[in-house]
């Protein structure tokens, strides 16, 4: 029995009021601004965002270090990223994001390694700059093929007044212009991962672009050169995207940053167009390249055939007829595949409801893919979105969709309990909570160790995964048969 839009809105209102009652008054007031129902025709989703999390409520958010080391910089494969500070941050984020890459790890690529300065008390008391210098020396000896080093600051660095910029400059000079990038992504900065993305973007601008040697790594430009920005190649996402761009006649000169290299970062200002998938984490550098190098950028969405086709056409519209025809050719080529995927899975998924809570672009970008399979997203929210994300979300969500920004563990649990969606898509911290409740779940950060989900090749996997989550026989076992009758 599905509710009408008006009934849904009334239900959501009641639900929000109910969860707010559990908070102390001051917190209820703060949280109320982050919870709402989307109203058709509004320019955003009626929620406040990018505001400090409330202490003690079990926010799902991470920190600036996670945004810089974990998201933006970490996947650059031929550089060594030092988790600078105590051992934990690097340990917990070690190889956890499945940024696929090709290379010989420990020799010419280093993504799935944990390099840390492992701060001890004496480093806090006397400062860590000397140790950092020594670490860079040791890296140069033991990992001679590294193409650069980044310093990913953990909380103490900014608090004890270390000068990692000075150390980086000194060592760059000592190692003949070797790229060394200090990043001020201490975890206490900002309100979430989001500021870490911004800081990381700025570090590319200041320590890579502004220091580039124009005579290095020359290649012949073509009118069809593009760079993929904001794809972290989780489970190979950037690869199943790149193949489509190349098939339509474009030449991808860089990937940011999944399976990316320092050379590719440096190639990018020569692109004719930057194509941007994760707007949230890499709009900053895209805007900078537009201003400084005149490279226009366009957002795209490679989840599900409808959005892929629209995106291919949108990207092609920036080029000549050859590329436009190429886009049509690609769309036509994959039609048989997507039709077969939909024919197989849509009947099993039609009408199923989904609630999402993810980061970056996904709370909106994946909606089209679900809709291609006949599913409805009835609630969504961003871990660290800004208002421009919620504006963009209005193009995706239906009237009456429940919106929850920086949702707390308590709220999410109550919302799902009441709405009883057929699927929840969120992260590892949420996964087992909902599965215990008997609600099918897919991790939508890591693709639950599956993927890719981008592109046509990824859509088949996405559809198969959603089907196996929802239609698994295990969910019919969660109630003991002798209890069913009651």
């Amino acid at each position, binding site marked *: 029995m599905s509710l009408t839009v008006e009934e849904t809105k009334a239900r959501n209102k009641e639900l929000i009021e109910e969860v707010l009652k559990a908070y102390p008054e001051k917190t209820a007031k703060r949280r109320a601004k982050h919870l709402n129902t989307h109203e058709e025709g509004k320019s955003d989703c009626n929620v406040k965002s990018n505001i400090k999390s409330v202490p003690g409520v079990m926010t799902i958010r991470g920190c600036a270090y996670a945004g810089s080391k974990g998201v933006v910089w970490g996947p650059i494969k031929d550089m060594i990223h030092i988790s600078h500070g105590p051992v*934990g941050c690097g340990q917990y984020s070690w190889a956890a994001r499945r940024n696929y890459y090709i290379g010989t790890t420990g020799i010419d690529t280093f993504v799935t390694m944990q390099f840390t300065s492992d701060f001890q008390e004496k480093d*806090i008391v006397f400062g860590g700059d000397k140790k950092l210098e020594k670490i860079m020396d040791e890296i140069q000896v033991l990992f001679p093929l590294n193409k650069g080093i980044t310093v990913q600051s953990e909380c103490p660095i900014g608090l004890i007044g270390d000068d990692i910029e000075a150390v980086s400059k000194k060592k760059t000079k000592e190692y003949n212009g070797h790229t060394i990038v200090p990043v001020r992504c201490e975890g206490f900065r900002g309100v979430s991962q989001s500021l870490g993305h911004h800081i990381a973007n700025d570090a590319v601008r200041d320590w890579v672009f502004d220091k580039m040697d124009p005579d290095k790594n020359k*290649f012949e430009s073509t009118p069809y050169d593009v760079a993929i920005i904001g794809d972290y190649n989780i489970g190979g996402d950037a690869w199943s995207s790149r193949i489509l761009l190349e098939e339509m006649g474009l030449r991808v000169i860089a990937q940011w940053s999944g399976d990316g290299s320092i050379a590719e970062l440096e190639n990018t200002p020569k692109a004719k167009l930057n194509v941007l998938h994760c707007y949230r984490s890499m709009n900053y550098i895209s805007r900078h390249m537009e201003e400084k190098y005149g490279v226009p950028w366009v957002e795209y969405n490679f989840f599900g055939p409808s959005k892929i086709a629209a995106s291919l056409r949108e990207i092609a519209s920036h080029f000549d007829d050859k590329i436009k025809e190429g886009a049509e050719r690609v769309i036509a080529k994959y039609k048989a595949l997507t039709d077969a995927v939909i024919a197989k899975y849509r009947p099993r998924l039609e009408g199923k409801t989904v609630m999402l809570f993810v980061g970056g672009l996904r709370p909106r970008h994946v909606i089209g893919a679900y809709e291609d399979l006949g599913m409805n997203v009835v609630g969504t929210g961003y871990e660290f979105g800004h208002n421009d994300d919620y504006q963009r979300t209005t193009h995706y969500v239906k009237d009456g969709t429940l919106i929850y920004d920086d949702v707390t563990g308590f709220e999410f649990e109550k919302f799902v309990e009441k709405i009883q969606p057929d699927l929840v898509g969120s992260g590892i911290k949420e996964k087992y909570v909902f599965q215990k*409740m008997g609600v099918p779940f897919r991790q939508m950060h890591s693709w639950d160790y599956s993927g890719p989900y981008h592109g046509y090749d990824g859509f088949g996997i996405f559809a198969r995964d959603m089907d196996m989550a929802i239609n698994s026989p295990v969910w019919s076992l969660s109630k003991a048969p002798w209890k069913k009758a009651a």
Partner: protein
Amino acid sequence: MPQNAENILDHENLFRQPEYVEMFENKKKNFEFSVPVDKVKEIIEWTKSKDYQEKNFARDSLTVNPAKACQPLGAVFVANGFARTLSFVHGSQGCVAYYRSHFSRHFKEPTSCVSSSMTEDAAVFGGLNNMIDGLANTHSLYKPDMIAVSTTCMAEVIGDDLNAFIKTAKEKGSVPMEYDVPFAHTPAFVGSHITGYDNALMGILRHFWDGKADTAPKLERVPNESINFIGGFDGFVVGNIPEIRRIFKTMGIEHTFLCDPSDNWNTPTDGTYRMYDGGTTKQQVIDALNAKATIVFQQFSAEKTAKLIADHGQEVVSLNHPMGVAGTDQFLMELSRITGKPIPAELELERGRLVDAIADSQAHLHGKKYALYGDPDLMLGLTQFLLELGAEPTHVLSTNGDDKWAAKVQALFDASPFGKNCKVYPKRDLWHMRSLLFTEPVDFLIGNTYGKYLERDTGTPLIRLVFPIFDRHHYHRMPIWGYEGAMRVLVMLLDEFFEALDANTIIPGKTDYSYDIIR
């Protein structure tokens, strides 16, 4: 077109299709400006050399692939082992997201924990307001019986005083005055996750025993016959604690687990999410003061806690993760000595069956060389067990083990003829281990999930017996303690041996004469 609706290709096969292989080659050739293949090969070979090992062991500042985490992780583990207790970490919020993810990836269970979400303003003015608001929110939202506070390095660097902050928060009405908020300072730049376990557990005991931060009278110890058990930081806790409980029950010993997360990380899927399940109750903590003795199963995980308990007049027996036959014998004999109760025939029968299994299989493990790394106590236990099997723990390494620990490992080597060519490596990481596996190869590696990178690089088969284990499921549900646990470990060692032998003999017409049916 690589993908196929009828037979969906996953990433491990999809990207091997020719379209992708060609794409990767072009990307590398045209845009990566990468190091020439010959140079890469040269460096690969060099990293296997003695020369590289010397340089690798000479480093004193850089840590690469360590086998340790930071203090608050241990504190969160501890809080999770107390009934209806919510872990509250004072400091930056990203840390808490990491601890929760880390435990959930290992146990495949939810891990509740809140943060006081300190940001720049708190860095300047201190995190008092975050504590005040945070405790109030946690208390009203999640209704725990107790909030166990620990700290991230941010709060430690700026010098926030938990005792004073909690007191102020109570005065401001965040939680009732008499509400239990035990705390522990857990700086990430001191020790490791086992230090955090120690500090957090000590914080809870001290809170209840020593007058609740000067708000209640100190408890008087009235000795009884009960025994306390402290397991230490343990990735197999879900399997191990029920096994130890079974042993206590079999021996008829009244007992208390001080920190028992074995239910909290083992809840059913039956339609209800239990945020809190099982764990040591506050009353049990209070009563534990009166116990006759406390067994600390992992000495290095509870050194300060052991001292606190001893200072309260109890006998404390600190063990080093005893496992295998002699290890379990030692544990049982200590229990018997302390309680005066005999070791029942039932356990003796289990022991006999374990020895029987070892006798059946020992020939396959005799003289096999093992490299192992992990927490200090676990390394001691495993070393002892391997020696007892006639195997050689050739390289025993611990990132958070110190010289005192190394001396204990050396003593085990010295006591066995199989320890003659074995060496212990305190304060080393997995990149050191990589060198060792090349220059002095072994037959098997025992470690955590990250050991799979060593397996890939050096071809040494990995046996997963160390936290965290992310890439195999449910190991943590099985005990590795007691005679039953030793049986499990024995089977794991044997499985890997047989798998390796089969893999080494599987080529038809070439090596498969040794691909035997009976082994």
